[in-house]
């Protein structure tokens, strides 16, 4: 299974190593550095690298490479999934998973890694268990710790590990019992030049924040569960109930977690909330190009589109852009060749427009391809698929919890080809 783990930052500095079996020399990472150099972009580093005696499986997250060393056959997804889980745990503990936070909390990180794997096999990956074993740092606690010299290690028994519901710790107590659910949907779409949909689907997740005392047993039901055709659940959800009754029945973990994710595929009609009219052209004669983009609402279900951002990856030959936006601000970075137009709220009366000229490197041939536009947007109080939570019932506890559901639609990988 997993032999060792190295954390490497974007500059190629190895800043943490952890071994679960006998020590593997860090020189094994040279193979990784070689591949990293060859790949140019960090995205393109192959996730699995073969070296004469080991296999390196790596993920790239938050500008850190998590490089694990494997010696024998193991499903690669097993390792990849685990590494992502590690990154998520760091995020959970320190608010963000970055080189600085990891360096600042080196000891906790090390303790976490120690608990998460035993002899290279995952032992405790549920954040609820880990938090019982090792308390996450808070400002208050770190102050107390420096003064009194007390520890971050929990002095209670990590009983969750023994339970049949390992995701929930026992003896949870809140004065305000509350359960909030966020239905977040992302639209993945490819629109072609003329604005017709080449491909569209909805990726939804239901994030939950449950702060309830005791051992509540919750049941969440939908108005239209038939929409949900392809789903995946947090381990706490009872599959059978879902299969037979189409309700989500579960004993929730304590705190924040992702209850389920679902996928509404292209076959169903996916509403596209905006349309984009664009015209980007480059001219052979004279080092220039023209750009004209207009965005307008399409199927917004009567809601306002917010946080609208258009991002364009320009061809390398584009030196600068002199544009005029009727709404919002634009910014062209000549180094990364990325044009970002931050529109903000979409006003259906006065459609935002960005227009102007692009100057190209002189002498270079005109680019073959027009760049595609990536759209970012957000619609509050709307799940674009039409999914609606019907009710939330609680069993097993006496008190009355506060309940709430929020809907948000966002653009996922929303691309307009030009």
């Amino acid at each position: 299974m997993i032999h060792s783990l190295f954390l490497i930052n974007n500059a190629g500095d190895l800043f943490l190593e952890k071994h679960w079996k006998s020590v593997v020399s860090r020189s094994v990472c040279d193979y990784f550095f070689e591949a990293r150099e060859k790949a140019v972009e960090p995205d393109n580093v192959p996730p699995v690298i073969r070296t004469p005696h080991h296999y390196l499986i790596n993920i790239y997250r938050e500008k850190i490479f998590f490089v694990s060393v494997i010696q024998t056959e193991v499903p690669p997804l097993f390792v990849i999934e685990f590494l992502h889980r590690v990154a998520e745990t760091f995020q959970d503990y320190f608010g963000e998973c970055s080189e600085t936070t990891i360096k600042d909390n080196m000891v906790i990180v090390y303790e976490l890694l120690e608990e998460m794997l035993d002899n290279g096999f995952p032992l405790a990956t549920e954040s609820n268990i880990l938090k019982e074993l090792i308390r996450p740092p808070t400002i208050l606690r770190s102050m107390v710790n420096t003064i009194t010299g007390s520890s971050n290690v929990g002095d209670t028994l990590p009983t969750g590990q023994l339970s049949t519901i390992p995701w929930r710790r026992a003896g949870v107590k809140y004065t305000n019992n509350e359960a909030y659910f966020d239905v977040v949907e992302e639209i993945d779409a490819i629109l072609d030049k003329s604005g017709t949909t080449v491909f569209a689907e909805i990726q939804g997740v239901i994030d939950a924040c449950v702060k309830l005392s005791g051992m509540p047993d919750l049941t969440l039901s939908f108005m239209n569960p038939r929409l949900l055709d392809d789903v995946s659940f947090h381990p706490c959800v009872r599959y059978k109930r879902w299969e037979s009754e189409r309700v989500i029945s579960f004993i929730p973990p304590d705190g924040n977690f992702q209850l389920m994710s679902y996928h509404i595929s292209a076959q169903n009609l996916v509403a596209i909330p905006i349309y984009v009219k664009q015209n980007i052209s480059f001219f052979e004669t004279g080092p220039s190009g023209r750009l004209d983009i207009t965005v307008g609402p399409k199927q917004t279900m009567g809601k306002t589109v917010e946080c609208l951002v258009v991002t364009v990856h320009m061809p390398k030959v584009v030196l600068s852009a002199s544009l005029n936006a009727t709404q919002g601000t634009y910014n062209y970075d000549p180094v990364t060749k990325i044009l970002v137009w931050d529109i903000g709220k979409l006003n259906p009366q006065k459609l935002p427009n960005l227009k102007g000229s692009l100057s190209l490197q002189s002498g270079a041939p005109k680019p073959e391809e027009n760049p595609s536009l990536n759209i970012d947007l957000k619609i509050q109080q709307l799940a674009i698929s039409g999914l609606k939570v019907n009710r939330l019932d609680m069993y097993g506890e006496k008190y009355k919890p506060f309940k709430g559901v929020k809907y948000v639609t966002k653009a996922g990988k929303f691309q307009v080809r030009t």
Partner: protein
Amino acid sequence: MSASSAFSDEKGGSASEPEYGHDPASGGIFSSDYKRHDDLKEMLDSNKDSLKLEAMKRIVAMIARGKNASDLFPAVVKNVACKNIEVKKLVYVYLVRYAEEQQDLALLSISTFQRGLKDPNQLIRASALRVLSSIRVTIIVPIMMLAIKEAASDMSPYVRKTAAHAIPKLHSLDPEQKDQLIEVIEKLLADKTTLVAGSVVMAFEEVCPDRIDLIHKNYRKLCNLLIDVEEWGQVVIINMLTRYARTQFLNPNINESLLEESSDKAFYASDDEEDEDKKAEVATLAKRKPYVMDPDHRLLLRNTKPLLQSRNAAVVMAVAQLYFHLAPKAEVGIIAKALVRLMRSHSEVQYVVLQNVATMTIKRRGMFEPYLKSFYIRSTDPTQIKILKLEVLTNLANETNISTILREFQTYIKSMDKDFVAASIQAIGRCATNIGEVRDTCLNGLVQLLSNRDELVVAESVVVIKKLLQMQPEQHSDIIKHMAKLIDNIQVPMARASILWLIGEYCEHVPKIAPDVLRKMAKTFNNEEDIVKLQIINLAAKLYLTNSKQTKLLTQYVLNLAKYDQNYDIRDRARFIRQLIVPTDKSGALNKYAKKLFLALKPAPILESPFKDRDHFQLGSLSHLLNAKAGGYQELPDWPESAPDPSVRNVEVKDSIPEWSKCTSRKDRKEKKVEKPFYSDSEGESGPTESADSESDTGSGSESASASDESGSGSESEESGEETESEEEEEDEEKEKKRKKRLDKTKAKKPAEESAESEQSSGTEDRKRGRKAVKNQKSASESESESESSESEDESEEEESEEESESDTDIRKKKTPVSKQPPKQSKKESKKETQEMSLLDLDDFEPAPASAPVTPVNFLSSSLVSDLEGLSLTDTILAPTTIAPSGLIKMYELLHRITGEGLAVEYCFSRQPFSPEPNMVAVQIQFTNNTNSETKNLHIEEPRMQSGMRIREFAEIDMLAAGESVTVVMGIDFCDSTQAANFQLCTHTRKFFVSIQPPVGELMTPAFLTENDFKKEQGKLMGMNEISEKLTLGEKCVNEHVIVERVTATANLSRVPCGSDKECRFAGKTVSSGCLVLVTVTTKEGGAAQLTVNCEKMVIGTMLVKDMMQALSQ
């Protein structure tokens, strides 16, 4: 060590505190001077925990950064008994890291852990074992072995889990312990808790993956526990079970594989050999028995399916590969959706999933076709993802979708990512070779690309065009000419070489241009790359042979240049070619054949996917990803020819191993709350240590002995464990009681369920009976005081049983049509009752809207009256009511009323011709609404069929009032196969996935033949088309009458008159294709008989024989 401690005593902790307090953990790490370490030593020796902690934190931070901290070992190791938990933990971290380097000193810590192993707190026992087993010091192997053995029979599942984790550690430390470890694994495999299952299978995989025999007894248990095991364990178990299943079960696609293979191979130009293979296989097929899935095989498939919904990508992938390798072809499709969902995940996950999808698409293209668009490429995808998606798209391309795919490719070619563009062009080339219809379109497109500004694009196009042209050069001399012109501009060596090769190969198509190209190339010969030079020599040789008048001198010149080239390959080639083509005195016979040699017709290259044949690696494995065997990879075995004995998986119920059921952990937790903090050592030191020592002594003594001793020594130690031990025993009792209670409850539920749900698959049946037996022993005394926790336990139990029964009905649906197995006979009784009831209902409902007559009259009787007249038996046949119920039409369940939320649906094969479409089988469906409200809009949606199968839906039922039932008729064209027809049954609120699988006998209609015709037809269907089996008739098959009845009940056939009274003959036609099916039953002395079936469709024939055999031998 003692010196340093003395030192610290003198100085005292308080004095040094301010000195280190200001120094944050990260600060001093980079300076590895010895002074620092002295400071640390001092801090460790102080008696203040805060100082120790500070020191340990800094040391751990050093380790984390890869700095060497080994010289602190003595100072650290003595803190192993420190009372502060965090210090202790950090010391453990240090110890595990450096023990290997300082073995002698590490031994000092061992006694602490040994003491820990005896702690009454299970978590402390576990953690002691964990650290002890992580210390890689060979001297303590015997101690570890003993500790593991003891922990393996610990009452706490958590400790047993830790023992399972320790097994591979010990194995890697000392492989000679393997045999003993296997015994421990065997013991732990029998464990019934989910906590242990994943870990022990992991140990099994690392220590003895080839000992498949250890799994037999635990197979069903593992399948049933699977869903509750933690996710990482699930992955390991599923992968192991995949391998197991491949050794124990038959290939579910055994009958289809032939058809499928032949069609697949046609795709990649079939060879003669394959044809032969096929014939051989067809021959063997005739002999082969029809396939019946082992219930255990089904159990595995059924229990892994819900895990496709897991949030863990590794679990989903594991299930997907299991289905890919084990499921019948018709069922593999369900994994596609889940895999497509994973594509939304992190790019690394995408990468791995796409690799596996690429392999799957080659074998089973149809599976991913509906998701084609999910593989469309975005400009923001990383290049490696783009190229994999391209691979999948190319594999998915077929005649129907090629135009959409090519349109997509067109946009890809314009991308800024040049590597990706090159890959796209290659993909177009592959589509063009595989799909003849679009070859010209692709070629034209590629030729247009030749005028692209980007040289890489042009070069790649040239290479691909070269390959395409090779398939049909005659029509494309203009393209060759065009390419000849390009040689002036293209600099990419591979492209230049390709052009030259093309011109040389087809110089007869471009007789004027070719010499000129050679002239140009001769000029630049010295500056070319090696591959180009070789092609220039080739071109020269070919031209010399075809057109020596014009090119003789040029060729001489080129060969001379090559003769003095720096590269020996080129010099060699030049020498070789000169000898071959230029006639000299010595060159001899070869010279004559030069032209044949050079201008022989060359087979066009086959553009193949790099993922072809990768599926011989287990999908989802590292080896598959790398396309090379990784260390420790276990080959996926081939299906066995005949299934090994399935009874090895039967479990005797009276298990000697104490069962710690789920509730134990719960209980423990509760009781533990009162206890002291984690890792605490508060109790006295002397007593336990001694006992631990003595323990280890006896342990090392008995250690060499075999495992049979082991349990003995275990109990001994328990006895010596004094009071605490007896307490534990009490606990046990309590737990035992609880369990009983729970079981009682479930038992109470069970009878009700059973009557409602009919039968259970035999395996689970056994198990349950066993459980019940256990329960019965203990049932009495318990009252109602249930604690909350055990209530929730019950619930899960309930779910489980629900699931079982549900899926059992499922299994029966699939099984019955293929073969009516004898053991079911007893259970049919109960079913019959319900049948008859429903028949009555039918009569009540005479004026149903459906056109077909509703009363299930035996079709045979009416139509055969005339034919059978004069035979002594006719009148009995005509009175079906007097015959045993097997003559009645069987009802099958389509939707149980519980799963259908009150809507019950049954169906039967009415044996009436389906009037709207004569080649469809009529299926009569009866809906019963058991709810209190009316059900509306009953109709069918989304039929998912095997290719060729069709469905003729019944008219939508607008409304079905509460308590009512209605009968309709629909037609299904099964294409003469027993493939299930899958579709959704929709009401106004719900959709149900249902499937109808016909018994083979229902796929035919009676045919009326005379005796002579019968003999004539039978004569035509000899050889491979004839299957004949000997059988012993069942006790009740006393006379001809019963035989006739049995045969006609099994298959929809009509009787053919026959002179001999020892023979019964039957004839029918398959519904779809109208192939004749002839059945002859010849009775002999003493209940023996011979059954002969003649049918052109061998699969139908073999299946029919099997069904008949069963019907007749009952």
